[in-house]
C-alpha cells in the first residue's frame, strides 16, 4: 500500500508540491510521486528530501487535460497499489480529483486543511471558511485534495529515484489555443503574504501604493468584490465568499470594511492587519493588528518601515 501524490507538470517545484509530498509522508511510509511533462530528473529527485520514495514521470505527455491526467493517475495508482492519493486543491486538483474519484470509486475529501484526525476523518474548509467539517471516507481508496498553505513543507529524507512511467493518457478533445501568464505575478491562492485593498482607496489610480507595499513584502495583491466588479482591479484578485478563498500567513486589508462575505474568504489567514479610517469597521473584530487611520498616509509609512526592516536584516 502506498501513498500517491500528483504534482502538476512544471519546470519548477511550487511550494504546493512540497506541501503535498510532506502531507503524504506524514500519513504513509511509501510515498510515490506521479507527474508528467518535461521536468528534469535532478529537480524531481529532490522531492525525496520531503519524503518521496520515488518519482514516476510520463515524459510523453505535457498537457493538463483533466480527462487524460485522470487516466495517468489511475494507472499509476493501480501500478503502485495506492490506498491514498493526494492533490493540491488548486486549479488542476479541482478538475482531476473529482474525475479520479468516479473512476476509482474512491471517496474524495476536497479542501483538506489538516492531517487526518485519529479517527481517520479529515478536516476540511466549509461555508467558505466560516467553519470546518470532518469528512469520513467509506471506500477502500481515498483521495485528499489539500488546500494550499495548510501545512509547511518538511525536509526529512534524501534525494530519491526518478523513473519514467507510461501513463497511457489516451486522446483528448481539448485544444489549447494560447496561454496568458502574467509575468512576475505571484499566484494569489499560493501566496504566503497578501496585500488587499477595497473601495476605501477611491479609484484605480491609487493602487500604486498598494503595489509598492506588496513589492517590498514580496506579496500578492488582492481586492474586495466591488473593486473587481467596477473594473478597478482584475477579477482574479477578488477574494471572499464568491471570489478566491485564501489562507496566507499575512493578510493586510486596506480600506476594506470587512463584510461577512469578504471575511469568509480570508479568515483562514494566520495573521490579519487592518487599516481603516473607521474605528467601527467590522474588520477590526476579525483582525490581529489594527490601525485606525487614512490609508493614504499609513500605507506609504508602512512601506517605508518595511524597507528599513528589510535593509537592516540583510
Amino acid at each position: 500500500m502506498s501513498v500517491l501524490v500528483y504534482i502538476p507538470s512544471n519546470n519548477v517545484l511550487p511550494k504546493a508540491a512540497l506541501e503535498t509530498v510532506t502531507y503524504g509522508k506524514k500519513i504513509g511510509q511509501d510515498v510515490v510521486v506521479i507527474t508528467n511533462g518535461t521536468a528534469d530528473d535532478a529537480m524531481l529527485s529532490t522531492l525525496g528530501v520531503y519524503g518521496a520514495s520515488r518519482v514516476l514521470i510520463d515524459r510523453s505527455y505535457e498537457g493538463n487535460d483533466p480527462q487524460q491526467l485522470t487516466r495517468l493517475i489511475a494507472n499509476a495508482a493501480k501500478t503502485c497499489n495506492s490506498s491514498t492519493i493526494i492533490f493540491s486543491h488548486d486549479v488542476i486538483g479541482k478538475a482531476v480529483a473529482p474525475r479520479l474519484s468516479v473512476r476509482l470509486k474512491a471517496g474524495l475529501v476536497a479542501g483538506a486543511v489538516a492531517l487526518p484526525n485519529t479517527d481517520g476523518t479529515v478536516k476540511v474548509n466549509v461555508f467558505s471558511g466560516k467553519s470546518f467539517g470532518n469528512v469520513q471516507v467509506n471506500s477502500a481508496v481515498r483521495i485528499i485534495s489539500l488546500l494550499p498553505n495548510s501545512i509547511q513543507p518538511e525536509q526529512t529524507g534524501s534525494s530519491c529515484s526518478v523513473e519514467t512511467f507510461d501513463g497511457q493518457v489516451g486522446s483528448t478533445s481539448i485544444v489549447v489555443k494560447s496561454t496568458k501568464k502574467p509575468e512576475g505575478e505571484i499566484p494569489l491562492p499560493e501566496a504566503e503574504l497578501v496585500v488587499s485593498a477595497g473601495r476605501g482607496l477611491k479609484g484605480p489610480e491609487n493602487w500604486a501604493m498598494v503595489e509598492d507595499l506588496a513589492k517590498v513584502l514580496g506579496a500578492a495583491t488582492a481586492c474586495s468584490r466591488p473593486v473587481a466588479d467596477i473594473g478597478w482591479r482584475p477579477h482574479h484578485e477578488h477574494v471572499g465568499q464568491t471570489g478566491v478563498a485564501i489562507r496566507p500567513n499575512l493578510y493586510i486589508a486596506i480600506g476594506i470594511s470587512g463584510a461577512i462575505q469578504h471575511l469568509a474568504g480570508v479568515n483562514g489567514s494566520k495573521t490579519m492587519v487592518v487599516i481603516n479610517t473607521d474605528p467601527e469597521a467590522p474588520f477590526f473584530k476579525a483582525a490581529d493588528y489594527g490601525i485606525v487611520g487614512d490609508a493614504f498616509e499609513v500605507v506609504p509609512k508602512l512601506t517605508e518601515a518595511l524597507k528599513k526592516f528589510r535593509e537592516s536584516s540583510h
Partner: protein
Amino acid sequence: MLHNISVIFVSRKLKDMKILVCISKSPDTTSKIAFTNNNTAFDENGIQYIVNPYDEWYALVRALELKEAGGGQVTIITVGGSADEAVIRKALAIGADEAVRIDADPVDAYFTATQIAEYAKNEGFDLILTGKETINYNGSQVAGMIAESLDLPLISLATKLDVSDSGLVLERETTGGVEVIEVSTPAVISCAKGMAEQRIPNMRGIMAARTKPLQVVSPVSVETLTAFVSYEMPDAKSACKMIDPSNMDQLVELLHNEAKVI
C-alpha cells in the same frame, strides 16, 4: 453591459443547443453558521436559502445568453427534497425553460453527480454547466464527477464561454494564468467569475416561473463515498491589537517577532 458583447460572437453553426444547468441551494451569504445535534448537523434555523451564486450568476445566466443568441433550451436540475422547489422557481424566474428535481437528499458529491449523470445520459444535452463550487461545501466536485461518469471532456473554472463554427471557445484559469481552449460538444463546464453578470428576475419572469414545467424524478440507487460526521467553528480570535498610525515600525516589529510572518 459587458456580457452583451460576447453574445455577438455566437455563430450560426451551433444553434439550438440543449443546455443543462446544475443548480444547488446554498445558505444566503449573510447567514450566521451554526451546528446542532452535538455539532453533527448544520443548523437550518433561520437560514434563508438562495440559488448558489456561482450556479446562478455565471452558469445559468451564460446558458440563457447562449439561448437568446442561438436558440435552444435551458433545463435546470437539482438534487433535493420538495422544500428546494422555492430555489428552483427562482432559477426559472431568471429565465430557464424547465426544471428537473431528483427527489433525494444530496448526501455527498458523488451521490449528487451520479444522479445528475444518470438523468443526463439519455437526454442528449450539448452542454452541462455547473457553478465552480457551492459556497457551503466548496468542494468543486460535481462537474468533474459528472464529466467522468459520462466520459465527457471537462473544462473547469471557465471564465468565458463562446460558440464558434467548430465548437466551443473557452477561457479557463490555470495556475497563475488563463488558457484559451477549444472543445467540441458535448462537454461539461464549471463556471467562474467573468462568464456573465448577475440578472435580477423581473415580475414577468416570476409570474411565468409558476407555470413552467417541473419534473420530479426518482433517484437511482447509488452508494455514498463520503460523509460529514461533525463540524467545528474556528478558534475565537484574540482581541485586535491597536497600533498608532504614526508608528509603523512597531507594526513591522510585531509582524516579525510576535506573529513571525515576515
